């Protein structure tokens, strides 16, 4: 069912077209070291990763750190004319402050949930999201479109904040998608297996939740991706991820994650690797976003020099 629904969004490239599969390059580092992060980005670009976004989860929500990473990403993208968007996934208030101070913010990120109380626990509300979106739109950094928001969600977040009002995890998750679509986001993904076994106990539950989330998101008109993932205290392994990866590929997921070797050394969980995306593109005959694909034929090899500078 989900495969019949295409949701197409644009910023510096076009994500979600039929026959395409994009990836978020996730180059996290345990101490936010810019060179360490750049090394992971370059590795990912070589595998054709990063067309959905190059998005860093910083360890620190410290403003100067976030600004340093934003400028590094912008410098890298400008230097090699990469048709993609970047993001530093700090708290939205930190990104708003960075924009006020003139930092180069492409997409504005926030984790959101399906109840007002759970969003309050994340430290966000609708007015704040609206204000951040307007700030990002005013920067006019998109070239082929102006979808400027990036949201992450996941079943169980309201329950874990004791903010679910007795409502089940999946309904709360679908409510989060209702909130997300109001802001015409570039990207939305569930971080399906991150929450832990109290909420999704094993590989089978993660598989079910991942398919539910993608379907509900697409049905509500969202450009749905998925962080196909698990933690080490869940009864799951990389084989479960391969299964969900393949099923979401068949379901037409807009994008997945690209983490070096599937091992996020900062957030301490496992996701999908650059290799996994190549596998999925291979078996379903999928290609990256067209603008990024055109660039990757000529532009990639030059990036290797970035670390020498």
């Amino acid at each position, binding site marked *: 069912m989900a495969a019949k629904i295409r949701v197409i969004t644009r910023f510096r490239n076009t994500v979600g077209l039929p026959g395409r599969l994009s990836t978020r390059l996730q180059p996290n580092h345990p101490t936010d070291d810019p060179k360490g992060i750049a090394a992971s980005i370059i590795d990912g670009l070589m595998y054709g990763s990063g067309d959905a976004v190059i998005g860093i989860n910083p360890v620190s929500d410290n403003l100067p750190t976030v600004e340093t990473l934003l400028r590094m990403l912008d410098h890298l993208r400008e230097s090699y004319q990469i048709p993609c968007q970047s993001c530093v996934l700090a708290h939205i208030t930190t990104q708003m402050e960075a924009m006020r101070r003139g930092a180069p913010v492409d997409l504005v990120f926030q984790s959101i949930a399906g109840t007002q109380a759970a969003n309050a626990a994340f430290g966000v509300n609708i007015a704040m999201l609206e204000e951040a979106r307007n700030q990002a739109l005013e920067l006019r950094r998109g070239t082929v479109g102006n979808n400027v928001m990036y949201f992450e969600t996941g079943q169980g977040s309201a329950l874990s904040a004791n903010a679910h009002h007795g409502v089940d995890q999946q309904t709360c998750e679908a409510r989060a998608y209702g909130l997300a679509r109001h802001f015409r986001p570039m990207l939305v993904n569930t971080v399906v297996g991150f929450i832990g076994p109290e909420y999704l106990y094993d590989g089978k539950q993660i598989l079910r939740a991942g398919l539910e989330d993608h379907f509900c998101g697409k049905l509500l008109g969202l450009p749905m991706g998925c962080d196909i993932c698990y933690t080490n205290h869940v009864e799951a392994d990389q084989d479960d991820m391969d299964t969900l990866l393949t099923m979401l590929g068949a379901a037409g997921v807009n994008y997945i994650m690209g983490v070096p070797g599937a*091992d996020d050394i900062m957030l301490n969980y496992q996701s999908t690797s650059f290799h996994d995306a190549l596998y999925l593109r291979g078996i379903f005959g999928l290609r990256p976003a067209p603008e990024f694909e055109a660039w990757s034929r000529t532009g990639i090899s030059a990036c290797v020099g970035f670390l020498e500078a």
Partner: protein
Amino acid sequence: MKSLREFTPARVDLGRTGHSLPTSELLDFQLAHARARDAVHLPLDVHSMLLELKQKNVPCVALASEAGDRFTYLRRPELGRRLNAESRERLTPLKSDYDVAFVIADGLSALAVHRHAAPLLELVLSKLDWKIAPVAVVEQGRVAIGDEIGELLGAKLAVVLIGERPGLSSPDSMGIYLTWQPRAGRTDAERNCISNIRAEGLSYELAAHKLLFLMNESSRLKLSGVLLKERAPLLPDSGV
């Protein structure tokens, strides 16, 4: 051209066979995952922990949460935050007026506390002239169990040393949580945390330095959590 691996501990520059990982990288990943899983399911060796502490002349007491086994612990977080009845009775006669109660709990990695809890505690105790409660060693414990223990012992401050969720490359990372006036129902916003204590992460010296700073500040300001900022001055010669 330097290898990308010189810049990051991430799994970069893995090479490929067709679209897939080379076999050696696949095996390396599976070994790391097995080690992380073992760390999650390894039982806390209470006997050895108590022996180690007694050898260092540290009074201690063995306790357990209401989560009787690891599968219950993983499914029912609230049970890992409460002591079982026998443990509560064991604490009652120990009640006094302590400055601090230290708690060692397995959390999600008994391996982490087996390796790091006693050496770190010894370092901290050597620099502390406080009235200290018997150290609680807790099976199937979560962070919040320190609230009940601190309250039952009559301690002003609870300091919980606990195994963190293992990463693929870090099965033995220990964290420390500090709570002023511990009592059941405290929220995470009322705690301070020091994370990533392991050989490749935060050293014992720096962790002890940060902890002592937080303990002194917490005691002076009579609070903990988001209002207590960790601004410990840098250690001399530490380079950090």
